[in-house]
């Protein structure tokens, strides 16, 4: 079982859209896929029209006293299930506080799913918290959607530094999302990332109103707009993620020097 997580400290960058879309594509490819909607806002759960309820509470979950398998719901799509969001996820951080080796807890909670699913996609809330740290240790790779702006790059640099500091085994796979190539700034930030070899995936997700419509239609993008350019871009992203996250040897993460260049570029651009 492979575990991917969508993560970015910034909100509104396309984490949930990426999570639901890649999960749908994986399921369509025949992978038994589970989305764990770990964001208490429950946007992924909402997209699939599922009630956001797991039952129990944050402390019970952390203690392993909640039967997560019983909380799983099938979506309308074959091979794709959801472990729904719950409002108590807001308190997970407090529940993890003081727990020994709290960074391993989420990985341990996923153990019962090992033989049932080929892929778990975790949709993470935009916080730098103990929960996020635990995700960094549960996931094989972190998909970090990044809007091509200096501030987003700065946030990404912080993520790189954090992963380094915590010695997280997860591969960070940043990619550009909500890209508007008509904007000079977007173009220049994309160019900068390429020049600095920051390990961005090739696929970039263009801004598309179809992606926003997912929350209105409450369906994965490919169900109602398979030919949209964002849908095509997500298809490329999925191909690339499989290669980079599961097959290719891990790439060397950016050095501190590159991360400093990233921070400084972001400072100059925003100053």
């Amino acid at each position, binding site marked *: 079982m492979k575990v991917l997580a969508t993560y970015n400290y910034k909100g509104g960058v396309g984490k949930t859209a990426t999570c639901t879309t890649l999960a749908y594509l994986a399921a*369509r*490819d*025949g*992978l*038994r896929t589970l989305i764990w909607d770990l964001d208490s806002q429950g946007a992924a759960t909402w997209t*699939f*029209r*599922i*009630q956001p309820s797991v039952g129990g509470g944050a402390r019970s979950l952390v203690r392993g006293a909640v039967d997560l398998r019983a*909380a*799983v*719901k*099938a979506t*309308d799509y*074959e*091979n794709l*299930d959801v472990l729904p969001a719950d409002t108590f996820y807001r308190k997970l951080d407090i529940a993890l506080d003081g727990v020994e080796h709290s960074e391993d807890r989420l990985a341990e909670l996923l153990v019962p799913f090992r033989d049932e699913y*080929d892929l778990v996609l975790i949709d993470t809330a935009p916080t730098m918290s103990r929960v996020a740290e635990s995700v960094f240790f549960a996931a094989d790779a972190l998909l970090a959607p990044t809007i091509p702006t200096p501030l987003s790059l700065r946030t990404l640099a912080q993520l790189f530094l954090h992963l380094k500091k915590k010695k997280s085994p997860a591969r960070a796979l940043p990619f550009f999302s909500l890209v508007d190539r008509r904007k000079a700034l977007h173009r220049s930030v994309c160019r900068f990332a390429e020049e600095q070899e920051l390990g961005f995936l090739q696929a970039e997700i263009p801004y598309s109103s179809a992606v926003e419509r997912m929350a209105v239609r*409450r369906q994965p993008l490919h169900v109602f707009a398979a030919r949209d350019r964002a849908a095509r871009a997500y298809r490329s992203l999925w191909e690339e993620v499989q290669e980079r996250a599961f097959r290719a040897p891990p790439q060397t993460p950016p050095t501190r020097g590159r991360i400093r260049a990233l921070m400084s570029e972001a400072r100059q651009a925003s100053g």
Partner: protein
Amino acid sequence: MTRNPKRPRLTFTVQPETAPGEVLEDLAALMPSRLLAAADRERTYFDTFDWRLYRGGFELAQTRAGTHGELRVEPRDGGPPRSARSRGPGFAWDLPEGWLRELVVPLARMRRLLPRLVLRTRATTLEAIDAEAKVVARVVLEEGKACLPEGEAWPVQTTLRVEPLRGYEPCAAEVARQLAALPGVVPLKGSTLEVGLRAVGWWPGDDPSSPASDLHPRMRADQATRAVLRRYLGVIEANEDGVLRDLDSEFLHDFRVATRRSRSIVGQMGDLLDPESVAAGADGLAWLGSVTGPLRDLDVFLLRFREEELDPALGPLQQHLSRTRQRERRRLLRALRSPRYTELKRSWLRELDTDTQRADPPADASRAIRTVARERIARRFERVLRRGAKIDAGTPARKVHRLRIQCKKLRYLIDAFGPLFEPEGTRALLKRLKRLQDTLGTFNDYEVQIELLEHLAGEMKGDTPESARALLAMGRWQERMRADMVVERERFARRFARFAADKGVDALVPREDDVGA
């Protein structure tokens, strides 16, 4: 494998006077739902020649999904089906990596997955939805035809299947309850595959290489012997096409087993039949055994490469074996296409179908088969005990080999005539015998393979670093097998002691339902 009784019944059909479409409309009126447009479905069910997936509790169907093929596994206990994108299956080990391969390989092993049934239907789906318009259960109505590959199409029974979704099982149970209560709806026994096969007059699960017994204890011994040999000829013929097309190694294996069984029964019971015909048949069967042997030996070797983690340095040996196999296969094809083979089958069948008794029949020919078979099994059993008692750590391999042959003869007699006795006793006797045979068989396989490696080493040139490494690895392999032969001898001593201490032939008691026979 039957439906899990804890799961509610989810499969139904409609009585002839009921319009299936109206049933769906009636059901739709009872719950929030949406009716999807009808769609054509074509499914090809795959399984091995001997139905290994079906007997293992699964059905595997290939469907078309866009430009991709899709393989769908349906558990026969009513569990949720799963699909994976894949091209048509050949061997299980060629399936793409993942859960499907992990599921199918241990069941199918070396057998090829063959198309067994094609189902063409028109499917209409009713989705039961909740307040959020989320699907909570599906009801699929299917009407259409089924055919065997390249066979005639026959109408299948209309089916109405409730498909549950994880986390919403109570909804599916409720939908099924409401469906069952509708007029004209009746429960349907069997899976989609079973319903389809029923339509074309087949039933899945039968192993064509293990034909059912049709013997009666009071049958004349000569007639019963002919009946047994006829069945074995049937097995030979059933596997012939698979051997000719080289579908998988087991066709040849079963072909050879049926040939050996025939030879063994001819040897042990042939005195009851016409001596001239028996002599000709025995000659022909011996020839058939000899022309199929070399290819089978190579298959056994090549299968070890598939199923064991052998030294990677043996790669050149594997290639050499594959090339040699091609040559042997051509030789076998020539034999099976020869007039001699055609004539052998024809004359052997004629002899077995003739019910005339020989001019000077021995007394046993007219006695009841159960009595004669029991006497002969007892005689063979005594011989096995006598020979086995003489085997110790220093006994030469050829004597172990002779004991193996005696055990085989005993096994074939029990296989052929065991069904005339109480199954429990027969099973117990066979179980001990099989364990003994396994040890003797493994011992013999090692001996044959060591010898074959010796021969192949002579054929292979050690002129490249790879082939030199392969020759060294072959030497190491031979040494390992010699060490394993010592282990098998020790195992033999233990198993033989258990076999000899058992009830023996006393385990063979007449079936209660025909004691008076």
